[in-house]
């Protein structure tokens, strides 16, 4: 079996680290546009040459702060040129980047700072209250750099102001390339946090080799070249945004347009047209949202849309393609596989709607049974993956690592099958994961917090269908001695303990549901979530729709 974590000469990578890829592109095409960033009403554009100069200045700043190879930094920054400049500057030094979901509470952010051993934290001014709370929560907080987006009127500088003092570094690009050569392929590059069952997110550590391998695989699968321009609407704290719409076009020598996620959807087609984007990457709910808007644009230059992160309903795919005339390429991957592991073929005629496609050349995929045996086509088992894009390990979770890596394969926790032609199909999750608007949420996390309320005797959270988000959360609560409790009390208790997007949309109390005397459980007291979902569909969905 191939050891993918040991990079052998036979599988030589073209670049020694992620920064070397950027530097190579800048040397070859210094005047070509690389990044356009639209934040609020401010637009910034950087050619490859100009961008690398900015990265060199940021790198000089990070070095002056004492950061060295192996250290970690956390970024609480929205999609923007600032994020990218700090990202590549850190990677060029061998400093690990761990971005933090800006929707998280201070408690969740603190956990990530501590778990990733962040030495410096960069945050936008609007997150200041939570950043200050991180300091209080941790006692010993990392050094914090608060960045503003407004001209220097307030107490915090813009990144461009900070970098001004390091302008000289931008002129020493030759030295920059030479100094970055110490960063190796196997070095840790990023830690991406994904939902965890225990109540805290788990950090997947990705190496420079992981990022380069997956970026190359995606760029080559879709035949991307210097004319490729991606629109990055998915947040950069997730790997889909980072790899598909940043590193893959970088690999191809193309360019990327950074905009702020969900808020930008109402102007999606204007953004595509204005910036001449020809590819983008989305989650299925974005397609549903775009279909929901009245403005139906055709005549744009979008050649294709990459889609993954949750099940893509066939109806949505077909409606979207018919309405907008853009092919959707469904694929599958996880944070643990850097981003995508498989895709439908670029040849539209060879696509199989409803399938997640064929494995990318960068990895192998298999359907295994509970004992790790390979299952034949048509049989359902666990989707397992091994390859250059499979992550190094979970951060500080040895038991979880042992469970995830067995028999040389990474066990995804997703069930699926493959057909005779090698196309893969997703059947569902092995666990209770809920995917709401592309965010993974384990119901156990919310239940664990709810049990801390003195009025709560028993509770259950389930995912139910939502017209835009795929799924949303519904909570069922049994109170101690049947005492009264309100949805506002539940929300008030959960708020500031979990991120807002994890808050249940609806909350029901068993004392108000005479035909549900108790939370349904099996003989071993295992919660029967399917029964609760059926109950919701049969008794509550219609009423919720009327009210909503």
């Amino acid at each position, binding site marked *: 079996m191939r050891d993918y974590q040991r990079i052998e000469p036979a599988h030589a990578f073209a670049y020694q680290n992620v920064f070397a890829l950027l530097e190579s592109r800048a040397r070859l095409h210094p005047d070509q546009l690389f990044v356009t960033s*639209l934040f*609020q*009403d401010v637009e910034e554009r950087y050619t490859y040459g100009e961008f690398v100069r900015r990265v060199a200045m940021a790198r000089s700043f990070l070095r002056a702060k004492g950061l060295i190879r192996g250290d970690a930094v956390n970024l609480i920054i929205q999609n923007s040129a600032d994020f990218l400049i700090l990202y590549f500057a850190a990677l060029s030094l061998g400093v690990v980047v761990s971005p933090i979901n800006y*929707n998280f509470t201070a408690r969740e952010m603190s956990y990530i700072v501590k778990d990733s051993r962040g030495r410096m934290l960069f945050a936008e001014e609007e997150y200041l209250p939570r950043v200050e709370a991180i300091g209080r929560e941790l006692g010993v907080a990392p050094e914090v750099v608060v960045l503003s987006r407004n001209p220097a009127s307030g107490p915090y500088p813009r990144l461009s102001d900070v970098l001004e003092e390091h302008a000289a570094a931008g002129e020493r690009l030759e030295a920059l390339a030479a100094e970055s050569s110490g960063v190796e392929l196997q070095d840790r590059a990023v830690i991406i946090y994904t939902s965890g069952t225990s109540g805290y997110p788990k950090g997947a550590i990705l190496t420079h080799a992981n990022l380069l391998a997956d970026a190359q695989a995606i760029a080559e699968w879709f035949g991307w070249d210097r004319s490729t321009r991606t629109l990055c609407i998915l947040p950069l704290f997730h790997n889909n945004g980072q790899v598909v719409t940043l590193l893959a076009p970088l690999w191809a020598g193309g360019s990327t347009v950074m*905009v*702020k*996620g*969900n*808020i*930008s*959807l*109402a*102007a999606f087609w*204007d*953004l595509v047209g*204005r910036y001449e984007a020809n590819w983008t990457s989305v989650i299925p709910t974005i397609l549903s*949202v775009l279909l*929901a*808007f*009245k*403005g139906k644009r055709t005549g744009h230059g979008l050649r294709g849309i990459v889609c993954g992160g949750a099940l893509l309903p066939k109806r949505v795919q077909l409606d979207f393609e018919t309405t907008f005339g853009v092919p959707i390429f469904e694929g599958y991957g996880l944070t643990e596989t850097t981003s995508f592991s498989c895709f439908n073929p670029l040849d539209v005629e060879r696509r199989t709607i409803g399938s997640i496609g064929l494995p990318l050349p960068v990895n192998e995929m298999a359907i295994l049974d509970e004992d790790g045996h390979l299952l034949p086509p048509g049989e359902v088992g666990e989707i397992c993956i091994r390859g250059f894009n499979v992550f190094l390990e979970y951060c500080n979770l040895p038991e979880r690592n042992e469970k995830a890596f067995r028999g040389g394969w990474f066990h995804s926790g997703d069930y699926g099958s493959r057909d005779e032609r090698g196309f893969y199909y997703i059947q569902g999750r092995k666990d209770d994961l809920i995917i*709401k*608007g592309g965010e993974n949420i384990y119901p156990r996390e919310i239940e664990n917090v709810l049990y801390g309320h003195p009025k709560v005797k028993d509770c259950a959270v389930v995912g139910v269908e939502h017209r*835009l*988000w795929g799924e949303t959360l519904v909570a069922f609560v049994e109170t101690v001695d049947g005492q009264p409790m309100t949805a506002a009390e539940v*929300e008030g208790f959960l*708020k500031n303990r979990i991120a*807002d*997007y994890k*808050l249940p949309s609806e909350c029901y109390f068993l004392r108000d549901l005479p035909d549900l005397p108790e939370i349904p459980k099996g003989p071993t007291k295992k919660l029967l979530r399917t029964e609760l979902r059926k109950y919701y569909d049969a008794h509550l969905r219609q009423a919720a729709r009327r009210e*909503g």
Partner: protein
Amino acid sequence: MNAENRRRFEELFIRTMKVDACRHDMKMGALTQWDSLKHVELLTEIDEAFGIQVEPTDLWKMATVQGILDVLAKYVD
């Protein structure tokens, strides 16, 4: 913006956000339920009710009730 459109928006906002009243100082993030997902839901409802095509540079203004009213005034009235 005219009183009728203002009233239509306020009703839409109350229904979507499930709040008792629509105050002009309400803003995304500060109101618990107004997160980025709910925001898109709100935008789809506005699109359904008013059928406006917002310029990308106007989107960021729509993170407060007052900002939405200003944008609606620009496109609807």
